[in-house]
Structures are given as structure tokens and as C-alpha cells.
């Protein structure tokens, strides 16, 4: 065997990054060293596969988000000088505002428009309702960031369509959304929660009484209602109820007993009895449910939830019992980040 092993230098060798003397040394070593020759074969095998990868195309909605963020920053930066200019030249300002009003009132298509694809790409104005009959499905294109399918027998309204925000309101029925955009650009209001897209695919259904269910099939979504928030990853769902808001999320493959006990806990009157069932039934990934329950149980019961999570998944560094029981924000965030590996 010639010289030291060269496994750490194989990439540079294969990519022609070594000088002539080093290249000769690696070459000579490979001729006599079996392990390094095997490693070089591995390198070539992986490199050949990697070289074959084709770049993916960035979604068109990304530029719209960048442009919107930049426009907001520019507008804020220019506001003080613009104000002084307007005071000095009021007549010109009137003309400009009139022209702007006329320009804004003229109908034109914008990349962030919401259009009804099944009705010949009809643009929806803010405030417009979409009603589907029993055998009727509506398909909406949400600017450049995704699509929404409105199921039969649904009633939904477009609240706003702007570069930095798309907001729908679902009165009743069911929608399926697929959104590829940065988080917190797409929102769906319901009678008992707002669904906040964090980059995901999901269905949201609401019955005539305002009782709802969010089921996430890809990525993450959040349900928000006042101070109450439920984070829902793919494979999980969370119910909503009028006057209460979002229930606690749970994975769809959790046991029936856990899911029923959770409904009783969130919306019934059987607090402690239900909690005992939930704690007993919880598996590793059901720490999603337990982590949310830390906020929702009575203070005296929080320690039981903490202990059950710690028994299922070892506590990460930096998460201390006292701070977790006090719901200290940094501690809870760090803990969630670690637990989320199993969600």
C-alpha cells in the first residue's frame, strides 16, 4: 500500500481539485489500497446519481411574495418624504389621487387574483360568495400559490385577495386546499376558528351548526381563535366548536379511545377521567396531543401530562421541569422542536 489512506480526499480527487503531485499520490494509493478503492467506487456511484438530478422549478408564487414584501418595505421607507411633498403641492396631489382612483377602479387581472376555474376563469371580487349545490363542485385558483376545491353543498366567501394575504370565509360545507407558499399568506375563517396555512394541504369542513374539523394531509396548518391555538401536522386533525374554538389536535391513527376521550375533554364535562384515558393511551407521536394539553389542563394536572411526555420521549437539553410546568415560552418552544421529530 502506498502512503496514508485518501478517503477524505476522494471528492477533491474526483472533481479535479488536487494539484498534479497530490493527484499522482492519490492515484498511486488507490492502485494498492483495497478499502480506499472501494470507497472511490462508492464515491463514483453516488456522484453519478447526484449528477443526474434535475433542478426543480421554484413555484411562481414565490416572486409574488418577494415583490409584496419589498413593496411594503419601500412604501414604509418613502412615507415621510411623500407626506412633505404632498403638503407643498396639493393641487398635483389631487390630480395624482384622481388618476390613481381611476386606475384602481379599472378592472384588470392581477397575479394574486382568486379565479373560479370551473366558471371560465371568472375573477372573484372581495366579498363575493361561492355557493355550490348538491351536485356541484367549484374549483378556485388562489393567485399563484395554490388551489381550493369547494365541495357540493358549501357556502364560502372571498374576504380578501392581496399579494401578501388571501383570506376566505367558510360558512358551511367542505373545502380542500393545496397551498405552496410561505406560511401565513393563506387563511380560511370558519365560525369557530381561523385556519392558518403554514405550507400545506388540508380539508376543512363545517356543518350548519358551525361544528368543524380540520384534517391536514401535507405540511402544517394552525387553528387560531383568540388566545387558543392548535398546530396540526400532516396525518393529524383537530375539531372546532362554536363558543370554544379549536380542540386539541390528534393523529388520525391514534386509538379510538384516545380520540373519544379527547373530544370529551375538549368539549364535554369529564375532565380528569378523560385525561387519564388520554395519558394511558398515548404513544410516542401522541406527544403532539399531550404537548397541547399542557396549556389546557388545570394547573394541578399539568405535572401528570409533563411526566407522561417525559416517559414517552426523553427530555431534551434545556427543558427543565419547573420551567415547563410554568409554560415558560422558550422552554416550551425548545421542547416542541424536539418532540416534533416524532410528529
Amino acid at each position: 500500500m502506498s502512503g496514508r489512506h485518501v478517503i477524505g480526499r476522494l471528492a477533491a480527487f474526483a472533481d479535479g481539485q488536487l494539484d498534479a503531485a497530490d493527484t499522482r499520490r492519490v492515484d498511486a494509493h488507490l492502485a494498492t489500497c483495497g478499502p480506499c478503492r472501494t470507497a472511490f467506487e462508492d464515491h463514483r456511484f453516488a456522484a453519478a446519481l447526484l449528477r443526474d438530478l434535475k433542478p426543480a422549478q421554484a413555484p411562481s408564487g414565490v416572486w409574488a411574495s418577494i415583490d409584496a414584501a419589498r413593496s411594503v418595505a419601500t412604501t414604509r421607507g418613502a412615507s415621510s418624504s411623500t407626506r412633505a411633498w404632498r403638503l407643498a403641492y396639493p393641487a398635483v396631489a389631487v390630480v395624482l389621487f384622481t388618476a390613481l382612483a381611476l386606475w384602481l377602479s379599472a378592472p384588470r387581472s392581477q397575479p394574486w387574483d382568486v379565479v373560479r376555474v370551473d366558471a371560465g376563469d371568472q375573477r372573484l371580487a372581495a366579498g363575493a360568495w361561492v355557493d355550490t349545490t348538491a351536485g356541484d363542485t367549484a374549483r378556485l385558483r388562489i393567485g399563484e400559490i395554490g388551489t381550493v376545491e369547494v365541495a357540493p353543498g358549501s357556502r364560502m366567501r372571498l374576504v380578501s385577495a392581496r399579494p401578501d394575504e388571501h383570506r376566505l370565509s367558510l360558512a358551511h360545507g367542505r373545502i380542500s386546499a393545496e397551498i405552496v407558499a410561505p406560511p401565513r399568506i393563506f387563511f380560511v375563517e370558519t365560525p369557530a376558528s381561523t385556519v392558518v396555512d403554514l405550507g400545506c394541504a388540508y380539508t376543512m369542513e363545517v356543518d350548519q351548526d358551525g361544528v368543524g374539523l380540520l384534517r391536514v394531509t401535507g405540511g402544517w396548518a394552525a387553528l387560531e381563535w383568540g388566545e387558543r391555538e392548535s398546530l396540526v401536522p400532516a396525518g393529524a386533525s383537530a375539531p372546532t366548536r362554536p363558543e370554544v374554538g379549536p380542540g386539541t389536535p390528534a393523529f388520525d391513527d391514534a386509538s379510538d379511545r384516545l380520540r373519544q376521550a379527547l373530544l370529551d375533554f375538549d368539549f364535554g364535562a369529564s375532565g380528569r377521567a378523560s385525561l387519564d384515558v388520554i395519558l394511558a393511551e398515548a404513544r410516542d407521536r401522541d406527544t403532539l396531543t399531550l404537548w397541547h394539553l399542557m396549556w389546557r389542563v388545570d394547573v394541578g394536572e399539568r405535572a401528570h401530562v409533563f411526566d407522561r411526555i417525559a416517559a414517552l420521549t426523553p427530555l431534551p437539553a434545556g427543558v427543565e421541569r419547573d420551567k415547563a410546568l410554568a409554560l415558560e415560552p422558550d422552554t416550551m418552544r425548545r421542547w416542541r422542536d424536539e418532540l416534533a421529530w416524532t410528529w
Partner: protein
Amino acid sequence: MVSLKEQKVTPAVIDACRRGDREAFRVLYEAHKDKVYSMALYFFRGDAATAADVTQDVFLKLMDKVGQFRGQSDFSTWLHRFAANACVDRTRRRWWRMTTVDPVGLDQRPSASSHEEDYLKAETARSIQEAIAELTPKIRVAIVLRYFSDLSYEEMAAALNCSEGTVASRLSRGHQVLARRLRRASMSALGEKP
């Protein structure tokens, strides 16, 4: 007429960016968006939403700092440094991680009617994506930079804030681990023991 994507990022374009020219930013974005997006997509196991988010962060930061660029090569290194840092930083906020993302991006799934070769390519890409995602962040970012940027080792070292030797060593290690995992995956697919 030359499309935005086909326009070259010349020093004049970068100068125009420094003056806040929106169209110049668009040229710059169109020229590099797919590379940045692909880096993030492979870094985050095909998580299209996080890749889109990272791409947005990178270009917003780029626009903010464009006045500090000194030249073309400097620009390329800066862009990829932002991209590498954005990927690694995002792993620290990893609750965004998708658990059941569709690998290789939402729009690249082979359909039932796809040609067999296309299907196999997509399956291979899926396996590679899974294997890359198992690498440590430092090795993973070196691998995605190597295959989705046009940077030299010297430029990669500048982008990753390490020596060229460290880049070479991370790439060597990354290829070795990937090869083992991919060989094992292909043997499992054939029903053989690894």
C-alpha cells in the same frame, strides 16, 4: 425577445439592483431561483413549502444586502452563502419539518401513465432525496451546494465559511454515506438482504 430567465446577470444588472430597480431584481431572481429552490428542496426532503419559504428569505436578504456586492463572483458566493445559511438556520426551527411530504416536489410525481423510464428516474430521485435528508446538516449543505450551484471549491469554502479541505472532506464523507444508503435501498427494492 429574450425572456427574463434567459437574461444574463451582468454587472449592469447588479448595479441596477443596487439602485433598487425592480426589473433588475427580477432578472437576478429568474437567473438563480431554481438553483436556490432546488438546494432547499433537497435539503428539506422535498418539503416544497419550506423550500419556497427559504427561497423567499434568501432573495429578500439578497435585495437588502445587494449594495455590498463587489462583483460577479462575489455575488454568486454571497447568494449561495445566504442559501446555505438559510437552510442550516431553518433546521434549528425544525418543527416546520413536514412528516409526510411528497418527495421531489408536488409537481414532479410520476403519473400512472408516465413512461417507465420517467417513473424510475422519479423513484431514484426520491431515494436520493431520502438519503440526503439523513445526512448531518453540514454535510448535507455541502452536497446540495456541489450539485445545485456552479461554485468552485474555493467559492464553496467561502460560502460555507470553512477551508477548501473541509469542503472536500465533507463531500467525500457525504458521497460515501449516500452510496451505502442508496446501494442498500436498491438492494431492498430488489428483495435482497442489505
